[in-house]
């Protein structure tokens, strides 16, 4: 128990239901290739892993520091493009992976530092607008430099042999599952996501993380105590950007493809925002619960809505509202309601329920 406590940086789930949900999610993700056979299920699980890291890094910014940035997908994209460009230019191999990741991290570091120092001195709204504009410009840049980034088509590339789908690790299937490169990649993602998540948990529960929360609550006061809020905000911005970059690189490794739609599009930015708010701002566990629910909804809610749509086929307006294509409508409504009624999200709700618990 003590070891677990240290592993989670003394930030335990603090709710029986939440703990149970987290354990369930971790077990399900850890055994996903064995439990849920099929290419689609594995892709869904991998997407969850990537989104957990991405959303947690955004929560570092939004939930813990109180900064709204719309440029988070830009850093996500830098990671993915770094991987893709290095792998196509240098030829596949671990060297390309390392070089791509390192270059992407360096670019993200510089860019987030510049954006942060340039615009974090001013009000939250101003920062939100600036990042929106910068992200839009970056997206255009990525689609225009088509020699370099593949333009709208994106880049397909090959992974190192160990991670390529045709690689067979074992001659015999293990528990009825052929261990190929895809499964190995999945476990690479799983380990990386777990480590990154624990690292972020460590960061937000460190004294540094406490300062960030102090700035979120009252930056004037934090400044008065002697913390230079610009420095801390910029550091938080840089850290979030770096984690997002790694998440992007992981996604690129999984898809073996990088394009504007998978990483840079504004829809993904909105998805991240929805997940953070619905999952719970200011608690990293919200990123896990939120990402899992969201990716599940994205991939399977549509099937559910399809049932509803066929049932309501004849009804004119209602039928159009429950078509599977409109699933984002319901998520948007949920988002607006959750900002009003439970700003701490699902995780906050679960933790509050525990407070009412007589235990």
């Amino acid at each position: 128990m003590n070891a677990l406590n240290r592993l989670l940086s003394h930030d335990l789930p603090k709710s029986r239901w939440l703990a149970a949900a987290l354990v369930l999610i971790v077990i399900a993700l850890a055994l996903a290739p064995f439990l849920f056979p099929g290419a689609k299920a594995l892709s869904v699980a991998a997407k969850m892993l990537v989104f957990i890291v991405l959303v947690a890094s955004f929560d570092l910014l939004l939930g813990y520091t109180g900064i709204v940035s719309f440029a988070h997908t830009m850093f996500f994209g830098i990671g993915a493009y770094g991987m893709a460009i290095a792998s196509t230019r240098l030829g596949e191999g671990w060297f390309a992976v390392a070089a791509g990741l390192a270059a992407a991290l360096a670019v993200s570091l510089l860019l987030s530092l510049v954006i942060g120092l340039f615009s974090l001195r001013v009000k939250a709204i101003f920062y939100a607008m600036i990042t929106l504009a910068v992200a839009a410009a970056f997206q255009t840049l990525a689609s225009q430099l088509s020699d370099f980034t593949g333009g709208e088509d994106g880049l397909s590339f090959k992974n190192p042999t160990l991670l390529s789908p045709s690689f067979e690790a074992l001659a015999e299937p293990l528990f009825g599952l052929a261990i190929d490169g895809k499964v190995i990649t999945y476990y690479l993602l799983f380990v990386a996501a777990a480590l990154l998540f624990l690292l972020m948990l460590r960061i937000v529960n460190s004294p540094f993380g406490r300062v960030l929360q102090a700035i979120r609550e009252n930056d004037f006061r934090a400044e008065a105590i002697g913390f230079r809020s610009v420095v801390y905000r910029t550091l938080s911005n840089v850290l979030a950007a770096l984690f997002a970059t790694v998440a992007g690189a992981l996604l690129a490794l999984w898809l073996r493809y990088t394009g504007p739609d998978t990483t840079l599009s504004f829809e993904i930015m909105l998805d991240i925002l929805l997940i953070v708010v619905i999952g719970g701002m200011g608690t990293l566990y919200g990123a896990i619960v939120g990402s899992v629910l969201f990716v599940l909804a994205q991939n399977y809610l549509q099937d559910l809505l399809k049932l509803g749509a066929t049932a309501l086929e004849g009804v004119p307006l209602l039928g159009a509202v429950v078509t599977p294509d409109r699933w984002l409508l319901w998520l948007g409504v949920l988002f607006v309601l959750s900002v009003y009624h439970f700003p701490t999200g699902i995780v906050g709700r679960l933790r509050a329920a525990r407070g009412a618990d007589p235990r």
Partner: protein
Amino acid sequence: MNAVSAAAASAIPEAGFDWRPIALLAALALGALPLVGSPSTWVTLTVAGLAMGLIVFIIASGLTLVFGLMDVLNFGHGVFIAVGAFVATSVMGGMAGWTMSPQLLPNLGAIFVAMLAAMTVAGAIGFAFERVIVRPVYGQHLKQILITMGGMIVGEEIIKVIWGPQQIPLPLPESLRGAFLFGDAAIEKYRVLAVVVGLLVFAAMLWVLGRTKVGLLVRAGVQDREMVESLGYRIERLFTGVFVVGSALAGLGGVLWGLYQQSVVPQIGAQVNVLIFIVIIIGGLGSTLGCFVGALMVGLLANYTGFLAPKVALFSNIGLMVAVLLWRPQGLYPVTSR
């Protein structure tokens, strides 16, 4: 005369009127002349730039007023643009008799009806949006950004429910297609219409803000909200009114923008959002005159660079924003109370 009321509208209690941003605008237009080369091309580009700038101004003016008055930045402003454009497709589609007619008058009539309908619908939705979405989160910036963004997601999806997710063509009426020819300079007819409508809106705004009691209250509210309240005026009602007008203007701008692009997609709001944010940042958040000058700069620069270096044109807005902010970090016409 115009300049005096413009100075009043910009809500700065400065002694003299600040000419430098306007001089910069003129310098931008004249400086492009030698680069473009032929004067006729330059005229074409300038008119196109002014038309685009004025449309952007119509869209952005409501946003900047709302921000100036109530310190609310509506990230969902784009929804009203989209609503306006889509209402226009329905109205003008239903008035095919008038739009297909070769005469000018029924054509203008159709556009006028479409504009009225778009403004009414966008204004009504703006009223509901302010009451339901924005009102509970006054004074909480973080929540405002999130909630208005959520409002935009929902609004876009509802538009898809009603009009479908696909692109809808919005053709210009018969007699507004094509261009006038002055010597070698070709000026598209529709752009002239856009310039006229844009200038009318600007003049009307200046008149309302500078010459009427409501405008006085709005300007006073931008300067010092508490003082207006303590003098016995219901600032909330005033704000609802400004929000509705701002939304209606966005609807009007949506019609103009849709006709300018000749097609509309549900994502139009999110696309234009970036542009109008750049404009109001350039102008100085909350300043009407700044918004006007900023919009014209963006429009002109986009057209000049689109002609001179199409690849650069995509980044001209961002470049302009950075340059302006380096010169004046608070925007062209800073609002002093913020």
